[in-house]
């Protein structure tokens, strides 16, 4: 273990400046935060070396939630991967579902029906709000402002209701299929979404009133968890965490997919790269997402929701029940999966926490040969030691909150 030795040599020799300090020897305190600790979202273990309350060195240990995502996906058909993608970022599962499907569709060379694109946009943005509300609420919670948390969670709960009406499940949505969607919008759903958005708007105002200008909150957030733009790029920050550094990179704008180019929205950017800016990014994006949901639902055209190609999409049920053609196509698709032609693709969407990249390799069979997920949280989490070393122990809390680490996607 040569590298371990090198590290020990790199450590600075003990400070022998003054005689006084020689007598007043202080030892650094090593404490373990996690894997089961209220501040460690999911199960992350952080070995922290403290000098007083100042973090001298932090070492993150992840993997407690590892489920073998890639290996699992390599052994099921493309559509069967969807439940696995649910469990990556389980707070915005739809975005994972649809992001994965988008990559597969790109590999196949499919263009999905327009209505499906609109619904995908609306569902994604709803779940972006879901994710951001959770994050904002969690910031409140872990900084002690419990009411703000519950107001945000109330909004999140409403989105969950809408999502369960849309997808059939609150959390693990398994929404969408290669080539489109597995179900259309339920009756009256659009109106309920509008009402939900109204309510969330009101709740957000309250969260905003409780937190944004509160000096206690501002003091906790501003100037803590700072990362420079250079470092942020280096570590691979994307999404709100990168934009908080003033770097304008949003996949929805940089390479618009689905119908995002028809959506009227803006990308908020920050400048300081601290916790406060990251918090503001999420608050602003909530408003932007709300606008996108409204717009996409308003403009969604009628029409089919999945491609009419029985090699890709399951035939309509009546055809399956009644005709041999339908049942054959159905069987072939279930048995062998979508025949994705051999090749590889890298494709990305803007998930709630940043660029959700998929690197897919197909060998031409119905199952993926390789599914690499570039989870935004993984890169961001790897930058956390940089953000908190030299800061106080308590700064760890808002930092962990604002990066919105989701164990499921980081640990695959």
């Amino acid at each position: 273990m040569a590298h371990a030795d090198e590290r020990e040599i790199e450590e600075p020799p003990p400070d022998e400046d003054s005689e006084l300090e020689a007598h007043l020897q202080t030892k650094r305190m090593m404490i373990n935060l996690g894997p089961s600790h209220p501040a460690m979202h999911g199960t992350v273990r952080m070995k922290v070396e403290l000098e007083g309350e100042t973090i001298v060195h932090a070492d993150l240990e992840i993997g407690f939630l590892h489920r073998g995502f890639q290996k699992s996906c390599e052994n099921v058909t493309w559509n069967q991967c969807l439940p696995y993608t649910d469990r990556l970022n389980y707070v915005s599962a739809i975005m994972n579902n649809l992001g994965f499907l988008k990559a597969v569709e790109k590999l196949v060379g499919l263009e999905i029906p327009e209505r499906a694109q609109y619904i995908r946009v609306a569902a994604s943005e709803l779940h972006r709000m879901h994710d951001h509300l959770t994050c904002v609420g969690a910031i409140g919670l872990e900084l002690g402002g419990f009411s703000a948390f519950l107001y945000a969670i109330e909004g999140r709960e409403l989105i969950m209701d809408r999502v369960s009406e849309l997808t059939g499940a609150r959390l693990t949505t398994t929404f969408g299929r290669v080539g489109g969607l597995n179900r259309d919008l339920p009756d009256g759903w659009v109106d309920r979404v509008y009402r939900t958005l109204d309510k969330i708007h009101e709740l957000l105002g309250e969260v905003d009133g409780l937190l944004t200008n509160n000096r206690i909150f501002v003091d906790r957030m501003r100037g803590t968890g700072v990362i420079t733009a250079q470092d942020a790029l280096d570590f691979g920050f994307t999404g709100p965490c990168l934009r908080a550094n003033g770097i304008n990179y949003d996949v929805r704008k940089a390479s618009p997919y689905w119908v995002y180019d028809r959506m009227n929205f803006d990308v908020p950017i920050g400048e300081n790269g601290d916790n406060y800016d990251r918090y503001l990014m999420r608050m602003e994006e909530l408003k932007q997402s709300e606008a996108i949901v409204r717009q996409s639902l308003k403009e969604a055209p009628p029409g089919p929701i999945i491609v009419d190609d029985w090699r890709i999409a399951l035939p309509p049920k009546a055809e399956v029940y009644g005709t041999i053609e339908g049942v054959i196509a159905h069987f072939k698709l279930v048995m062998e999966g979508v025949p994705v032609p051999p090749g590889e693709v890298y494709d990305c969407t803007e998930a709630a926490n940043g660029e959700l990249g998929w690197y897919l390799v197909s060998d031409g069979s119905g199952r993926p040969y390789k599914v690499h997920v570039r989870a935004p949280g993984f890169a961001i989490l790897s930058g956390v030691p940089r953000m908190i070393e030299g800061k106080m122990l308590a700064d760890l809390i808002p930092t962990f909150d604002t990066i919105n680490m989701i164990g499921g996607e980081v640990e695959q």
Partner: protein
Amino acid sequence: MSLRALSLVQEKYPDAFVEQYTDRTGGAWGVLKAESLRPVLAHVKDDPQLDFKLFLSIDAVDRLQLPDNDPRFEVVYFLYSVTHHEHLRLKVRVGEATPEVPSVTSIFQGANWWERFVWDFYGIRFSGHPDLRRILMYEEFEGHPLRKDYPLRERQPLIPERPIRDIFRGPGTSGTA
């Protein structure tokens, strides 16, 4: 997508690429020689014409079951340029016997964890990595699970597993449980 970048790199380092591809999805990528990986990555990061400063990720592909599987592993680097809005995909191929690739942690700090990831799951070493430990699997784990020849059913529990007996009663439980 990143053909421009590939050709720019080609200009600067004529010998760097083993192969270049474009595929039907519109993606383009290049396979680099292992020794030119670090210079090329440093170049694409710093050259203002390229400016691939955003480090996305690293992963590997075990090509064991693909028709063309020599060398066996392919380490893939994903970069993005926030100024030119381009993705860049670079690959390095490495054989099975001594899977070792130069580390790029000194160029991109974010590579640290991803390289640990690749080491963990594919057993590809990164020479010059400051702290090449497993990242998601536990230290006691043997083997590299994403290799295609790692058996899917292999189990390496740290705590001995206790079989759960009552499930073996089989179906028909709606009567007597």
